[in-house]
């Protein structure tokens, strides 16, 4: 190792460690706060060392896991009540809605990306046009969506003789999440599918496979890691979505970001402890998921902008 190289290694690790600190600091603080009692959430100087500066407690976790909702900043214990919501309910709803919408979005988007890649479906500009969807700030559509969702049941009654509710239902939110993530699915999958040689498909089709079989047996397996990456990406987007859920769901359907917003206390303000606890809890699954597919991640995010 030459001295210059050595110097570079030192420089590299210094910079990277610095950023590691920047990244871990807020997360660490959140985890720490989740173990603090209310008096320690906000205090000057800040309380750092567990058992020395503050007495760790599971109160926050007990609160979120048993009941949901919130209480005074002082006394946290509360009898278990028949709450419409708790973290389990929100977690269930989030998982169902986000999983279904992400998977459906992935399938629809991938198939369309295939068609675009192979036949220029929708014309040369289609991928760019579809990107417009992503530009719409959700607040722009949230209110019309509410009116629309409110009048859809009537429309359905009139059309098919059955009342179909959209407001505050699983599929209402699911459908919206599908649409809002489609642009990214199409873009990312287009990049992956463009890289699959057409001859592979030609070969399959000459050997007797139908187009659908070809896609299923040849194309999709080849872009599997790309699909995993795309799925993770739209999963994260949907998992985090706040504004549409806030406007168009509750009380029957409740997602985690919306639940988080409920942890408010006396007159107005935040229950940092339970918020930190729930934040810690909802972050873990996504981080684990990301960790599991980490090695695929690198492949996916150049959006096909570089051709090998």
């Amino acid at each position, binding site marked *: 190792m030459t001295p210059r190289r050595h110097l570079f290694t030192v420089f590299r690790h210094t910079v990277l460690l610095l950023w590691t600190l920047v990244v871990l600091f807020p997360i660490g603080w959140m985890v720490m706060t989740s173990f603090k009692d209310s008096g320690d959430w906000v205090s000057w100087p800040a309380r750092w060392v567990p058992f020395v500066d503050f007495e760790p407690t599971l109160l926050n976790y007990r609160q979120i896991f048993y009941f949901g909702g919130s209480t005074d900043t002082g006394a946290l214990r509360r009898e278990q009540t028949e709450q419409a919501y708790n973290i389990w309910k929100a977690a269930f709803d989030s998982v169902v809605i986000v999983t279904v919408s992400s998977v459906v979005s992935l399938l629809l988007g991938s198939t369309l990306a295939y068609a675009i890649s192979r036949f220029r479906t929708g014309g040369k500009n289609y991928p760019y046009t579809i990107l417009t969807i992503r530009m719409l700030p959700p607040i722009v559509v949230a209110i019309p969506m509410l009116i629309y969702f409110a009048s859809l049941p009537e429309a359905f009654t009139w059309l098919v003789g059955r009342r179909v509710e959209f407001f505050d239902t699983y599929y209402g939110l699911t459908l919206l999440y599908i649409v809002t993530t489609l642009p990214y699915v199409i873009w990312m999958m287009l990049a992956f599918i463009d890289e699959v040689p057409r*001859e592979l498909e*030609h*070969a399959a089709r000459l050997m007797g*496979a*139908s187009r659908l079989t070809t896609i299923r*047996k040849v194309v999709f397996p080849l872009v599997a890691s790309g699909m995993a990456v795309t799925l993770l990406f739209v999963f994260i987007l949907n998992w985090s979505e706040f504004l549409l859920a806030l406007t168009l769901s509750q009380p029957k359907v409740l997602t985690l970001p919306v639940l988080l917003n409920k942890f408010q206390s006396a007159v107005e303000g935040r229950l940092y402890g339970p918020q930190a606890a729930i934040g810690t809890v909802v972050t873990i699954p996504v981080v684990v998921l990301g960790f599991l597919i980490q090695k695929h991640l690198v492949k996916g995010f150049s959006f096909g902008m570089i051709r090998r």
Partner: protein
Amino acid sequence: MSGVRLDAIVKTFGKTEAVRGVSLDIADGEFVVFVGPSGCGKTTTLNIIAGLESPTSGQVYIGADRVTDWEPRDRNLGMVFQSLALFPHVTVFDNIAFPLRIKRMRAAAVAERVRAVAATVKVSHLLDKKPGTLSGGEAQRVALARTIVVQPAVFLMDEPLSSLDAKLRVEMRTELKRLHASLGATFIYVTHDQAEAMTMADRIVVMHLGQVQQVGAPLAVYGDPANRFVAGFFGVPAMNFIDGELRGDGDALVFESPAVRLELKGGEPLAARPVTLGVRPEHVRLTRDASGGRATVSLLEPLGDETLVFLEYGGAGSLVAKVDAEEALAVGDRRGFTFRRDRIVFFDTETGERILRS
């Protein structure tokens, strides 16, 4: 087993015409090679036969069926691609088994058939490997195995040997020829390599600019080219072309260019017209006298058994002659040269069409 017939195939992509009216009859069991420079429309034609692309107009027949609108999978074809198109995500076995499984053959039968075919193309030891780990030749065989496993009536091959090294390519040529003989199926082979065309084809179809230039047996195409393009395309080194003027008075034809003058016996009376004379290097002879013309040796390329001689002869470019290696020559020597008269061909300078074809 079936023949293939193309009837006035036209294919346009937007404004570009890739194939402009190709009609062709390919007999059952024939080995036909489409040859031409890249962009000549040969691969498009092949894809149209395969059904991977549909013609803008014209019809495709396989056997007795008009298959123009049929899907590829219904045409009973086998195809080997330039890139071989082995599925990288599954093993060699699964690659070979793929078409059988698509046809919903029972697993036991699949295994049996795959093993049998693997044995014929000598890839039995590779069955558990993934394509990515194979050598070029091995991959080639696997691709063949995957194609023949369903016993198609017609084999389509799109430059399958282009990724192999020279030696392997020559070996595979022989092997393909043997395979053709043993299968008795119709082979349609696309290449830009004239050597492959010459060595393997029963008939060669020369394509250029979306049109068929000439169809014929290899030697016929080589020796009796239909136009200047075909003449120039075959042969290494290429045919010599000399622009000049030709006229005939009934007794003799006279070709005249600044550097070369030739008199040929016979022929009909002919008004003077610009032509291009074509003569292959092996038909150029060097002499001690100056019966044809005089030239200076500018470069020598020994090939071993023969030597290529580049001559400054006073015309544009150099004249290439292929002479026996024994001939004692040195750069700077001045020699006379003549052409084998019976092998000289003439093309219309403007159209490139052959004239005075006997």
